Each structure stands twice: as C-alpha cells, then as structure tokens.
C-alpha cells in the first residue's frame, strides 16, 4: 500500500469534523438564511441525511473492497477504462473542492484581516504548511487534528457563551411559518458539506479498528450537524432577519462580543484558531487529492506529487474566479449540484453495481450454502 501509516477510527472522526465544519461555520449561516429565513436551523438537520448516506455508502463499499480507496475500487466495479474515468472525475472534483476551500480561506483572510497582503502569499504560506503535513501522511494529519480540534471546539464554545447576553431566542419564532419548504430549500447548500463525508473512503483502508469506522463516521456526522444547528441558532438569535445580508454572519457575531470593555475585537484571535481548523480541512483534501492521484497513476509513493499538486492548487485557486462575488455564485449554484452528483449519486451507483455484480458472481455459491 502507498500509505504505511495507520490511524484509529476516532482519529478519523476528529479529522473529519474540521474538514466539514471549518468552512461550514462561515458559509452555511448565510446560505441557509437566504433560502430558509427563520427556519435556517432546520436545514442542517435535513441536509445531514446526505451525510449519513455518504458515510453509509463509503463504509459499505469499504467492506466490499477493504484495502482500497474509491479510486481503486471503481476500477474493479465498472471495469478498467470506465473506472479510470470515474477516478479522474473524482480527482478533478477534489481538485476543485480543494481550490475552492483554499480560495474561500484566502478571500476571508485578505478581505477581512490582511487587506494589503497579496493573495498569493496568504495561499502559498498555508499550502506550504499543508504540504509538510501531507508529506507526513495520514498519521500526522490525524495527530495534528487531535491537537487542534479540542482547541477549536473550546474556542467556539467559549464564544457561544460570551454571546449569551445578547441572544434573543424570540427571533426564531414563528417556526415553520411557511411550511417545511423553505427549510428544504435552505438544505440544498449544506448538502455539499455533508456530501464531503465521502472523503472517509480514503481513510477507511488505513484504520486500525475497521469495525468502528461506521460508528465514528456517524458520530462525526451528528457532531457536525449539531455544530451547524447551534451556529445557525446563535446567528439567528443574534441578528434575526438581517442574517441573510451579512457575508460572514459568524465573523460579525464574534465582532459583536464585548465583555467588561476588555474582551472585545477578538475576531483576529478567533480567526487564528479558525485557521487551524481550515488547515486540517485543506490538509485532508490535499492529502486525498495527492493520494488519489498516486493511486490513479499506480505510483509506488505519493510524496513526489505533493509539491507539484500544491502548485497546481495555488494556480487553479487564483485563476478561474476573479472575485468573491463570482466565487459566491459558483459556491451557491454550481458547487452543490456537482457535489450531490459526485459525492453521493456516483458512490450510490457504484455500490449498486458492486452489489449486483457480487450477487451475479456469488449467486451459485449462495444457493449452495442455503
């Protein structure tokens, strides 16, 4: 196997949490608020169904092909040529996922905190750090996540507490004024984030305790869903109807904090912690991209690919979308569709075909055993 490291199922869960949440806390409140209005907190619950489905699909496929990732077993399932094609689609998909995250990070940093720093420096420095982690392999990513995630949760938990005096729960009433439809519409965009759980198919083969993969995958989906609900509620209780018009409602919420005239304007500090979460997210997707490429090309080692793909990422990041507005349109209208097709539908089809093929080839045997 290319990757020699081993992680535990809990490490996988801890790694996946920031992989979903890191960017979700920035974009999901605004996206859900636009479409769901006051019912924005219901949307993540509905959207999380894809998360459960993705984990289920990844684990089922993993059980059929225990030592392989989706790039490898798609060849076994639909044949060499079509399989390579699907693999390539996945690589392109992860490339666009990774650059869009990187770009979101860059836009936020340059837009809110470092207005006079070139985007290239911001992206490049982050990518260098990620490259170091990716070269260390899945073990290093897992351990780094174990370090940063508790910090991440602690800081965001404390922020929620500090916002407490300003919250007005009345903002959420009436619940489901126009039926469930707005909430469902609002759920379209978070689908993309929950679909990202398919990434675990790249980690399942390296687990020490495989049987717990499903459990920890599901726990992570629930944790992610709860985090999104809590953040949506916080923002809603704080800003009410105007949430939809804010670019980063959560950052605004942090700006809002002022305790004892001393703890105020802590958004830079919070962003620094958020960077740690984003680091895990970019690192994991970067790792998946590098590992997938190496497997797609049947290489014996993925390390030589780390820097070239990193450069590719920075370039793709700078090139296709000129500004934040276009990026937002892309993220709002195009990315969810691609996301659902590739992250959920394609694995679903793969699983169906794999099950049917298994039934056909094992058919005789099963009858005999019966």
């Amino acid at each position, binding site marked *: 196997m290319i990757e020699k490291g081993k992680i535990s199922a809990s490490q996988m869960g801890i790694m996946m949490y920031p992989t979903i949440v890191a960017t979700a806390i920035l974009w999901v409140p605004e996206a859900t608020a636009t479409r769901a209005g006051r019912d924005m907190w219901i949307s993540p619950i509905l959207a999380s169904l894809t998360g459960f489905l993705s984990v289920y699909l990844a684990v089922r496929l993993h059980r059929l092909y225990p030592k392989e990732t989706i790039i490898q077993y798609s060849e076994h399932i639909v044949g060499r040529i079509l399989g390579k094609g699907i693999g390539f689609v996945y690589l392109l998909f992860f490339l666009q996922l990774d650059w869009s995250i990187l770009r979101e990070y860059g836009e936020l940093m340059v837009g809110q905190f470092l207005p006079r720093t070139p985007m290239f420096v911001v992206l490049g*420095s982050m990518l260098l*750090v990620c490259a170091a*982690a990716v070269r260390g392999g899945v073990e290093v990513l897992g351990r*780094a996540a174990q*370090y940063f995630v508790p910090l991440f949760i602690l800081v965001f938990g404390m922020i929620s507490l500090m916002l407490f005096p300003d919250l007005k729960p009345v903002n959420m009433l009436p619940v489901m004024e126009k039926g469930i439809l707005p909430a469902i519409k609002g759920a379209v965009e978070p689908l993309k984030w929950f679909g990202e759980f398919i990434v675990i198919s790249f980690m399942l083969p390296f687990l020490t305790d495989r049987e717990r993969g499903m459990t920890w995958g599901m726990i992570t989906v629930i944790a992610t869903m709860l985090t999104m609900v809590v953040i949506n509620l916080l923002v809603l209780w704080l800003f009410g109807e105007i949430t939809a018009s804010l670019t980063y409602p959560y950052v605004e919420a942090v700006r809002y904090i002022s305790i004892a005239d001393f703890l105020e304007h802590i958004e830079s500090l919070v962003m620094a912690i958020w*960077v*740690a979460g984003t680091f895990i997210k970019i690192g994991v997707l970067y790792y998946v991209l590098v590992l997938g490429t190496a497997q797609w090309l049947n290489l014996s080692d993925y390390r030589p690919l780390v820097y070239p793909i990193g450069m590719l990422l920075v370039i793709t990041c700078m090139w296709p979308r000129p500004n934040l507005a276009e990026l937002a349109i892309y993220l709002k209208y195009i990315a969810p569709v691609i996301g659902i097709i590739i992250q959920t539908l394609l694995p679903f089809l793969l699983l169906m075909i794999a099950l049917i093929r298994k039934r056909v080839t094992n058919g005789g045997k099963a009858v005999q055993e019966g």
Partner: protein
Amino acid sequence: MFRKWFRKAKPLSQKQPSTPQQDPLSTDFHENLQVLRSIYNNCADVIFRPFLIGGNKKAAIVYIEGLSNIEEIDRSVLGPLMDAAAGEADTLRAIIENKITVPEIKEVKTFADCIGHISIGNPVLLIEQEDRALSLGLAKWEKRSLEEPTAESVLRGPREGFTESMGVNTSLLRRKIRSPRLKILSMKVGRYTQTEVVIAYIEGLADTSLIDEVRNRLQRIDMDGVLESGYVEEMIEDNPFSPFPQVINTERPDVVAANLLEGRVAILLDGTPFALIVPTTLYSLLQAAEDYYQRFMIGTAIRWLRYFFFVISLLLPSLYVAVITFHQEMVPTTLLISMARSREEIPFPALVEALFMEITFETLREAGVRLPKQVGAAVSIVGSLIIGQAAVSAGVASSPLVMVVAITGIASFSVPRYSAGIALRLLRFPMMLLAGSLGLLGVMLGIIAIIVHLCTLRSFGVPYLTPLAPIKGRDVKDVLFRAPWWMLNTRPRLTGEENKYRQAPGQKPDPARGTE
C-alpha cells in the same frame, strides 16, 4: 535538500587506530612483556613492575599510575606472592585461590583484553609459562564527591546527583532499584576513548525490542571519541534535523529510576554525570521530578503553569509584534494609548525593536553562563537593569517591550529541562519574523508548522506527542494533570503492553480502610 548533502558524504575509510593486538598471549613470558612494552611505548604513566613469585617464578604486574589502588596492589598481590614458599604458588589456580586476596579477578587471554583492563585501571598480572594473565579489580581513581545537581535542583527530593564515574552512577541506580531485574549492559564506544557505555533497564518492564534497538543504535556509533552523552544523543536520534530533543538528559538518579520503572531505557556514559533516557515525549520534557514529590494538587497546578509559560516563552514576543503591527484593535483602548505613547519616540518598527531586544537578552544569558560566577552576577545586573533602563530612556526600545522580553526570559527558565527550553528559544526568532510579516495569521501558521513537525517526530518508535496525539486515554491523567499516586495504577503505554499495572488498584487512603 540539506539531507541529501549530508547523506552524500562518502563513508570514511574504516581505518582503526593502530589495532590493538588481537593475538592471544603466548606462553613465553618475555615475549608477552615485550609486546605490552611496545604497545605502551612512550607511555610514561604505565608502570611495569617485574618480580619473582616465591623467589623463583617470574611475574610482572602492569598498571597505570593513578588509576589503580597502589596500597592494595602492595598488600594483596605483591606481598603475598613474593612471600610465598616454593611450590606453594606453582599453578595459576593455586595463585588465585591461595595467594591473591583481591575480590574480583578475571582471566584474560588476549593482548586486546589486557589493554582493555589496564586502561580502565585494573592491574594485569603476567606470570611465567602461563598463556593467561590475571586482571585484578583494583581500579581506583580520583573522583568528585556526590553533589546536588545544579541544573535540576529540587526543594523536596533526593539531593544526590550522578558524578563522572560510572561505578558510582550504577551504584546510585542499584541503590534505588534493588531488584536483580535491574539489568546493566556494558559496551565500549569510541575508537580512541574506549568509553564505557551502559544500558540500564528493568527486565520485564522495558520492551525487548526497545532494548535491542538502543543496543543496535549504540553499536553503530563509530567515532574517535565520546566525551559527553551529547555525542551519543546526536548519534542515536530518530530525526537529526529537529530543534526538539528526542532524548532526555538528566543528572538525577531518582529521575532515571522513575523512568526505568515506567519501562524506559537509560544510557549512562563514563566520564559525564548526564544520563540519557529514551524514548522521550514532549511532555516528559516538561515534567520535573518534584511534580511527583509534592502534593498532587500543587503538582497539577505547577504543571499547568509550566505548560502555559512553555507556550508563552515561544509566543509572547511574536504576539506582541503581531498585535502592535497588525491588530491594534485587539488592545483595550486605554492600554493602547499608553503603549502608543511609549512607542512614540521609537524609530524602529515593532519587529526590529523586538528582535534587537531579544538578541541582546540571549547574548546576556549566554555571557552569564560562560563567565565565572563572580563576574556573571555583574553581567546580569548590568544587562538586565542598566541596559533595559537605558534602552527605554534612550528611545531604542519601548517599556512594554522590555517587559515582554523579561517575561519571556523568565518563562523560558520555567521549563525544567534546559534542552527543551533551548529549542523554544531558537524557534522564537522565526516566529517573530512570521508575526512581523503576516500578523496573527503568521503566528498561527508558525504554530501549525511546529505542531506538524512535532507530529512527525518519533523517539525510538514512540510518537513524540503521546499520549495526547495519538490519544492514549489512560495516560492523559499523568500529562494534563498529575494524578495522585493512588490513581497512577498503570504504566505509561510506550512501546509494549507488557506488565500493564505498576501498583495494586484501589489504594486510596481512607481511615476506615483495613478496619472491617
């Protein structure tokens, strides 16, 4: 890139220094003596003392002046042998059993062994017609008395430290751990110095594969001389390109004993009081012996304080630079005004100012360590008081910065292991540069880079950040806290799982215990 250069270095010619004769001793006494004399040509401190056993049998004793106990040689070897009656001491066996009153005697058969014994101070006795010589355990040399280690002092706890002499050090260990399961393996390292290196471990607690690995790595060392355990440390590390120490060094026998009991392996070197302990984790570098001697609540509190200042010693100057340069809004307004007032006259950007003061402070510290003690005090007064004060009034540095530098300095002294503190002192400078160029984002990227590096580190196969990453549930209680002794039932999980428990469970003291 650098790795490649280092790797490319051609293997040096395997030439050994004038190879000590591997030949066995011959039965010809004069030839043996001749060979030894030629080997010790121009060595004025090697004494050859020929004499006759019982008046007829030729013999000679060879030793190095100052390394052997001369009175004992006279009383238990020369005296009895020269006074022996004819026929009483004809055979080697008779000599050993009847005449020589030395407790430790070894037969040696080759010149190489002879030289080995002579050079550690054991006199070697050559006897006519014998192809074996006798090595007498009479080594004795000047040594320092036991003192309290200055680098690791404690308020409560044993005050003895290792010395430069191997015999004393192993005996100190043996006095702490009396069980015969304490094993002490000896080997020689260094082409010229032939330094004695000892691997100490407790059988059944230390993982056998760990012991083998330590032994293999030590055997691979092939260098001219090993004068301090620092030489060995650099030769056996897992990652040579890391600022973080992957081996603990300590002068305290109680620290070594405690680590042996946790299943680690110690390496002791003759000629230095510093013992090495492997495998090492980052947290063990942040623990002091005294944590375990004081009450557990105080131990825990002090441990937290130390973790906090460990981080401070790395981050404070860079946080200051980042906040002053990029994020002024984070400082409360009144404080910001007073800071701005004090920075008003400073011509430099915060980064330059901080670098300047930090480098000055590091220089002061280095000068203070190297200078004689009496002068050192003067340097610290001149440095800390006068320069600090003058820098502020001359408008070179602002007073908040002087405070930051001082706190950082004190924080780095609070790290109990000097080798870990020094790593942070080094990393502080790149962190300041990052803070000066990218603000808090730069600081965070620096932290991420350091943690990623720490996550890749291993010390003898054990991940450097165990037990927090990868998380080992049972061991967290001895890292995040200092759990009371009656709760520390399990040994830290290092490489093996052998012998999990270190004490009987359920020993929580309670007056009602043992009454029912």
